[in-house]
């Protein structure tokens, strides 16, 4: 297997607040990696560093072998990186279909009929097809989360970064979303997924990494990681139920 994403000694801090502390992480092609950690541990910031919305103080980021540390967010998207946001951020004034088209035309460089067909195909997979002409600002939470996923997929990513996409959903909604994500992973897209809903995460990922205070403190086989002392300590009293299910 070859690495699709390599973070090397990545550090970033805002004054005394450390959000990435000498993080080194390698994601293999085709892998599904889960990331857990308490709130404020620096998980979302790690995504911001990977996608280029934050610049690191030091360290390098390699994507498919190329050093992208100095590349803009737009360039990284066109190279094949896409993410969803924890708090959905649709283009509220555009319709669902137009949201998808922006990603397909700008991110994946498609045009005309091919772009439309691609978007329709993705919308069908994410079960948003019947809402294609709805203005995105009026969608419900589940549909907004689905739109986050749709938009990321329309950019034809090789690496998909999901940020707490299952958070806030009901159990049934969560199950159907997990099914969709499993299909996406099977189609060959590498996934890095930050999630507090651990049982959803464990249904998909091959490997689990634990982040706390901007530090990567453990990484390995999901079951073993969940049973490890570090995780038990971090999650003690916070989400023991979920850990139990895992």
């Amino acid at each position: 297997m070859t690495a699709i994403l390599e973070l090397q000694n990545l550090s970033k801090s805002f004054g005394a607040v450390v959000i990435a502390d000498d993080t080194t992480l390698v994601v293999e092609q085709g892998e599904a990696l889960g990331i857990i950690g308490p709130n404020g541990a620096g998980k979302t910031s790690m995504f911001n560093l990977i996608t280029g919305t934050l610049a690191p103080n030091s360290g390098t980021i390699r994507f498919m072998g190329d050093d992208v540390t100095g590349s803009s967010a737009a360039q990284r998207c066109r190279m094949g990186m896409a993410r969803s946001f924890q708090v959905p951020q649709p283009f509220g004034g555009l319709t669902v279909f137009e949201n998808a088209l922006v990603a397909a035309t700008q991110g994946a460089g498609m045009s005309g009929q091919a772009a439309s067909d691609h978007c329709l195909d993705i919308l069908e997979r994410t079960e948003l097809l019947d809402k294609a002409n709805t203005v995105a600002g009026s969608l419900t939470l589940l549909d907004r989360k689905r739109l986050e996923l749709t938009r990321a997929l329309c950019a034809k990513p090789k690496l998909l970064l999901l940020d707490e996409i299952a958070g806030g959903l009901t159990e049934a909604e969560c199950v159907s979303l997990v099914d969709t994500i499993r299909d996406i992973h099977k189609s060959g897209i590498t996934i890095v997924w930050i999630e507090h809903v651990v049982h959803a995460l464990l249904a998909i990922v091959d490997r689990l990494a634990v982040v706390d205070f901007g530090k990567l403190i453990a990484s390995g086989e999901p079951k073993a990681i969940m049973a490890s002392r570090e995780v038990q300590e971090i999650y003690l009293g916070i989400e023991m139920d979920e850990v139990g299910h895992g």
Partner: protein
Amino acid sequence: MDWMNAIIQGILLGGLYAMIAAGLSLIFGVMRLVNIAHGDLIILAAYLALTASMLLGLHPLLVLLLVVPMMALFGYVLQRGILNGTLTGDILPPLLVTFGLSVIIQNALLEAYSADPQKLDSGVLDTASMTMGGISIGILPLLMFAVAVAVIAGLQFIFYRTALGRAFRAVSDNQDIAQLMGLNRRHVFGLAMALSLAVVAVAGIFLGMRTSFDPSVGGGRLIFGFEAVIIGGLGNLWGTLVGGVILGVAQSIGGQINPGWQVLAGHVVFLLILAIKPRGLFPRMTD
């Protein structure tokens, strides 16, 4: 009959105001930049057309083919070279920089062309007219209005039916997310300014054919542009056309009552509408 005439002339004049306003509205809508130099850029376009038509001996309408791409290119370079650097999220830097630009353009024009009023010679179009129901309508104002409607329709089409328009709306909606979707916002802003100045070029040439101009009149055009945008409602292109027409008709009727009241009447109607409907007649933008 005089009143009817005044109203029709006002409507046709409104087309010019709508074109001036459309470029302004476009820039504000896409990047929240208030372009104080907009009026002076219109006058710059008129002078460019004057020079080109004198050097090449062409009719001002043919010169459009030259001035529109020139202004568009200038817009792109201006945006990428200077204005992008002012877009830091604070409203003040772009205001100050475009104000400075306004001063620079005015003085450069003054240096190059002197303060003498100039006019673009549109030949027979200057006086050609047709009579309808006892009212004489100039062909040039009619053409100007038709072009304005076409420009607004064109912008509307670009905004809502093309990939470029989606890029404009996506960036306007959320710049950071647009970046993550592969949009280079600096380039998109450059294209928006290019489009805006292409419209400015058309407006400038029609302005130059309709009235005389000198380097100092840009500011007044800017005010009319602002008023048309705000009367129509921010972010609504057809509303901008209506805003331009209302302003044109108000000025024309004011001028009919007393020639000195022309500009004043426009401002009064603008203030009235602002007092009654602060968000304009047809607001679209929610924030």
